[in-house]
């Protein structure tokens, strides 16, 4: 296997732990725990950085100032202030709520959002769960994030939450199909569902964004729709249904929704990076994971750009766009890929 900085570090760490304990199973286990801790660190770090970045980007886009008081004139400590505010808020449970389901919903929402990080190849050989059916398993797990919304919406005993829950389901189901179909062209080209194989297939600068431009556009739109962000944020469209499924949550429970949302944002960016932008591949003057995060952050900026420059769409527009435009186009892309592959004699 090709070595990289991260996988080399993991190998060295495994050797060191093995040297101390002398039990191979224990060093494997310790390395897994370290990996999981690192992934959770990345997710929380992303949430902290993105709360700040979102405001600054939004301010920049709309010619405003953004945070500029807490922590110097750039407002660098704004996320800390946000965190303190969230922690000091009262935890209110609505009357007549379905207590168990209500409490479970935010926690269950975070589980699939965090679980998918195990599949990402941050660098050559630096994957926590290296599965042959990686792409499929990844989307099977991220698809589990739909039910907790519905759970929270039902359990809150609030009609706005309920409507929001229904909206999440219809929107996420509608865009999961084009999302998966847009990746079929890539799977046809690489012949593998392992994420690292897909990245390696893009070696030499032949990124899939050039080979599959239509798929990239479909993927990006569907991914933004899956993360429930503007222009597809009618799940929590505040002018219509207050905050959708989050309406009745406050303080740290609400923060969990928030954390899952930013985890999903980074997931969408990382997936676009891995599938279309060559993942950790790049010129040698930077290590692989640096390229990886550079591209991912660029994608996050692009998605934030969408958020602050597009108006919110209506629910019927979203659904008909998903089923009548995105899905046929993604199937057309699969067909075209097949035709071109046949014509070039690749099959």
């Amino acid at each position, binding site marked *: 296997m090709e070595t990289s900085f991260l996988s080399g570090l993991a190998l060295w760490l495994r050797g060191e732990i093995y040297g101390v304990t002398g039990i191979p199973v224990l060093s494997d286990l310790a390395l897994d725990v370290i990996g999981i801790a690192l992934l959770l660190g990345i997710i929380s770090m992303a949430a902290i950085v993105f709360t700040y970045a979102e405001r600054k980007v939004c301010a920049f886009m709309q010619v405003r100032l953004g945070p500029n008081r807490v922590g110097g004139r750039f407002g660098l400590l704004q996320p800390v202030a946000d965190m303190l505010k969230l922690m000091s808020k009262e935890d209110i449970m609505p009357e007549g709520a379905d207590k168990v389901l209500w409490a479970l919903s935010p926690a269950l929402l975070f589980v699939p959002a965090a679980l998918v990080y195990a599949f990402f190849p941050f660098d050559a050989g630096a994957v926590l769960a290296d599965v042959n059916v990686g792409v499929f398993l990844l989307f099977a797990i991220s698809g589990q994030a739909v*039910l907790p919304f519905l759970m929270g919406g039902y359990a809150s005993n609030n009609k706005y939450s309920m409507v929001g829950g229904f909206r999440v389901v219809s929107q996420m189901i509608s865009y999961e199909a084009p999302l998966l179909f847009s990746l079929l062209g890539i799977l046809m080209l690489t012949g593998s569902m392992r994420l690292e194989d897909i990245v390696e297939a893009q070696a030499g600068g032949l990124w899939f964004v050039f080979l599959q431009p239509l798929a990239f556009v479909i993927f990006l739109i569907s991914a933004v729709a899956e993360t429930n962000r503007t222009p597809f944020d009618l799940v929590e469209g505040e002018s219509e249904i207050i905050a959708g499924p989050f309406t009745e949550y406050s303080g740290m429970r609400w923060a969990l929704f928030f954390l899952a949302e930013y985890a999903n944002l980074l997931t969408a960016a990382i997936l676009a990076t891995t599938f279309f932008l060559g993942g950790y591949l790049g010129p040698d003057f930077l290590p692989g994971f640096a390229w990886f995060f550079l591209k991912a952050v660029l994608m996050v900026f692009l998605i934030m750009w969408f958020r602050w420059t597009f108006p919110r769409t209506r629910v019927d527009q979203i659904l008909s766009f998903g089923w009548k435009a995105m899905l046929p186009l993604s199937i057309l892309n699969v067909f075209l890929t097949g035709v071109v592959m046949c014509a070039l004699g690749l099959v």
Partner: protein
Amino acid sequence: MQLLFYVFALVTIVGALGMVLSHNIVHSAFYLVLSFIGLALIYFSLSAPFLGAVQLMVYSGAVAILVIMAIMMVRRTDMTVSNPTQSLIKRFVGAGTAALFFVLMGLSIVLTPLGGGDAALPATEAADLAGLLLSRFALPFELIALLLLAAMLGALLLARGGDES
């Protein structure tokens, strides 16, 4: 691995029991999801990740949402007693049917010669499964596709509503 199997089996069984015994039908539906996920975990522990992923995507992803949406759309009154206890006779009939099913399943499992022999290992890789589906099982595969298409057209017809004239 043996221990993991028992843990996952426990999850599945708790989910199934919770579904039957719960008084709130929405809780029943969520217990059903727990049971689906437990089954997927068992597939994973049997090193069949593709099957596990299919189980997650189809059952706890799609079927569960369908069930819960249907319940929430149809039922508008209080949910807390929406799955009431049935009369004694019905309970006996239900238990009898379940026992019969258990015996049938048990018999078919015990009587089927498992593993070993000269048969090749069943395909678990996605590519092998795809190959099998499009060659040896092409006809059943197409028939299922046709059935699903018919269901989809039927759903569209229902959603459009009847002809006014």
